[in-house]
């Protein structure tokens, strides 16, 4: 143990660089996973904060995002007459690509009735739309494009005035904006169109049984909002998990190489000392332990620093680009530290091979 620590501390700059290498790799793994966790929260934010426990959609539609739904004209009436239903909130929603200052900004349009609900949960500034030419814009998206209250934007060829700025309605992929449902009907050119119903059930009723009763109406499906949120998460996870895993794997390999290189160099430099140890009877196992302890110590320090760096980098990213939410979940942190330790074990393989092949007599020849 003493020998390992001595070897490691012998050159402080080298130790610092190796710790930095592992820290950067661990930080990258954490930030990548933090992005995904943050994105997951942002994706379900509207569903999480909108009224009701159930979502009624067109038959076959099991997502809010990623799918378009058009309910039969009488769906809201039928739903409100269903036993166990307390309140029905209709919304008309779909993705829209906005052209803001020559940049394409995908946004999710929600048409709602301010008197009934379905709008943003938090209004940071301004008020709800009172006319069909007024819009509540996401605050972060507005700031990114130098927009604010009173400014005008074009949505599907029609001019709207920003009268409110909503909070917690953004993600790096898309942001939400809210207009009156009647305005949305004009934009999609289908009078009376409704995409989804947000249904609140009576306290005495079971949401699942109300959902099955609602689902019996023609042309609709009713599901728990939590189920729809899970479906949205699965959909986006499917898209992003492959590139994300690839990036994490590369970061992991880089970290392993960094630790491996440092411990290898430290071992090469102390080759003679290891030879002496072998000559006086130290077994390979002892020398493996020395090498492994060095790798573990460098990795532990690097992992710890990596977690701190990730927390700092996460804050910096969110301050510089507020559309990103980086969440360092405890399980992700544990995973990154475990990855750091695994890097150490893999890294110890190189120098261990060197030590194993070392001839004890070598030292006496030099």
């Amino acid at each position, binding site marked *: 143990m003493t020998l390992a620590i001595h070897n490691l501390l012998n*050159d402080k700059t*080298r130790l610092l*660089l*190796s710790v*930095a*290498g592992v820290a*950067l*790799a661990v*930080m*990258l793994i954490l*930030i990548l996973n933090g992005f995904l966790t943050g994105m997951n929260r942002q994706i379900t934010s509207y569903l999480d904060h909108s009224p009701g426990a159930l979502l009624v959609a*067109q*038959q*076959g539609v*099991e*997502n809010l995002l*990623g*799918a*378009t739904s*058009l309910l039969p004209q009488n769906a809201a009436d039928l739903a409100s007459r269903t036993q166990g239903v307390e309140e029905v909130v209709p919304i008309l929603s779909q*993705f*829209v*690509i906005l*052209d803001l200052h020559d*940049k*394409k*900004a*995908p946004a999710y349009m929600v048409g709602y009735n301010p008197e009934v609900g379905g709008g943003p949960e938090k209004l940071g500034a301004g008020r709800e739309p009172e006319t069909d030419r007024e819009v509540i814009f996401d605050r972060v998206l507005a700031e990114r494009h130098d927009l604010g209250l009173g400014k005008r934007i*074009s949505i*599907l*060829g*029609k001019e709207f005035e920003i009268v409110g700025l909503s909070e917690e309605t953004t993600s*790096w*992929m898309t942001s939400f904006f809210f207009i009156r449902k009647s305005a949305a009907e004009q934009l*999609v*050119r*289908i009078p009376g169109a409704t995409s989804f119903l947000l249904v609140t059930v009576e306290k005495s009723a079971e949401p699942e049984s109300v959902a099955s009763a609602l689902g019996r109406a023609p042309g609709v*499906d009713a599901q728990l909002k939590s189920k729809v949120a899970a479906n949205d998460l699965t*959909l986006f996870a*499917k*898209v992003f998990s*492959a*590139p994300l895993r*690839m*990036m994490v794997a*590369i*970061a992991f*390999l*880089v970290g392993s*190489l*960094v630790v491996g*290189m*440092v411990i*290898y*160099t430290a071992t*090469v430099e102390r080759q003679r000392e290891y030879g002496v140890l072998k000559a006086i009877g130290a077994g390979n196992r002892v020398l493996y332990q020395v090498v492994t302890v060095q790798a573990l110590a460098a990795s532990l320090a690097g992992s710890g620093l990596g977690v701190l760096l990730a927390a700092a980098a996460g804050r910096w990213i969110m301050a510089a*680009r507020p*559309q*990103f939410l980086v969440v360092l979940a405890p399980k992700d942190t544990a995973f990154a530290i475990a990855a750091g330790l695994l890097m150490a074990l893999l890294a110890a393989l*190189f120098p261990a091979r060197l030590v194993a092949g070392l001839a004890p007599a070598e030292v006496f020849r030099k």
Partner: protein
Amino acid sequence: MMTLAFRNLFHNRVRLVASTGGVALALMLILALDAIFTGVERQITAVIDNSGADVFVAQSGVRNFHMASSSLPASSVQAVESMEGVAAVTPILYLTNMVVIGEERNLAYILGLPEEANAGVAWKVSAGKALPGLGEAVVDRRIAENSGVGLGDPVEILGRKFKIAGLSEGTANITSSTAYISLQDFAALRGQGVVSYLLVQVEPGEIAAAVAKHIQAQLDGVTALPRQTFAAQERQVVKDMSTDVIAIMNLAGLSIGMAVMALTVYTATLSRRAEYGVLKALGARDAHLYRAVLAQALISVGLGFGLGVIFTWLLAQALLAMGSSLYLLISLESLVKVAAAALVIAGLSAILPIKQISGLDPAIVFRGK
């Protein structure tokens, strides 16, 4: 000095492999992410590029397919057909939804095509037919294979069961695929009286941009764009969405690459400290030694850059062979950017060892240290 740099670098092969490998992987982080988005940009416009249409007409303010929806009155078909320079108009219905095969749910562009569609049809079909009839669907072959189904099997689209009548090629990307059903089925499921886009073919000799301009001027509430512009707008959506993510990943790749290189050049210089001392004692100037260190860093980073490109290319080939929808395309722009990043890495990583050498006492060699 170059010889010294080479000798220092190639003296220890394991260290050389680890350092160039580390730099290669760090640069690969930048290259691979760029390649993913470039690949998506290419794949995402495949339906547009191969549509056979010269001009795309959409609802006013709609300039692409991805994450967009458009609604035009059915009367617009005749209005455009009668315009000068227009040879044929194919109205299509379009939206993004799920294609459900068994338990598998895949996001897809759903296109509703008329019986005698002149444009918008699947351009390459490996089995079955390209134009679906009533109750039929043409789906992407890869999506069908991954779900274990083929021709004649059922697929659920817009909440209704369809029979797979054709398997298309090149119609899937990392985010979604394309599924084709008949316009009549689509309209029955999503309401009549409107169409989403008009795919216009112009008369021979006519210029698409001029016809598009004419359509937009003559018809209220529409945006008409030539195919190339429409495709460019589609690519722009991906580009604008990914700019910030790419910037952050580039920074991460750059930092990691820098740490790896700094470590490599530092340890290589450290282990040759005595030799540098001898050179200094023999009268070598600091500037010569700095150049050797810098050359060492440049050679390492150059090798790492080459390896990084090879790794990314191999990864792209492996994904292609595995039938993955993740398509990596290395662009020249990306190569130039990564090469520039590599140069920055090499320059900065040489600072530490240069500092080491400048403080080196030539007498050290005589003291046996």
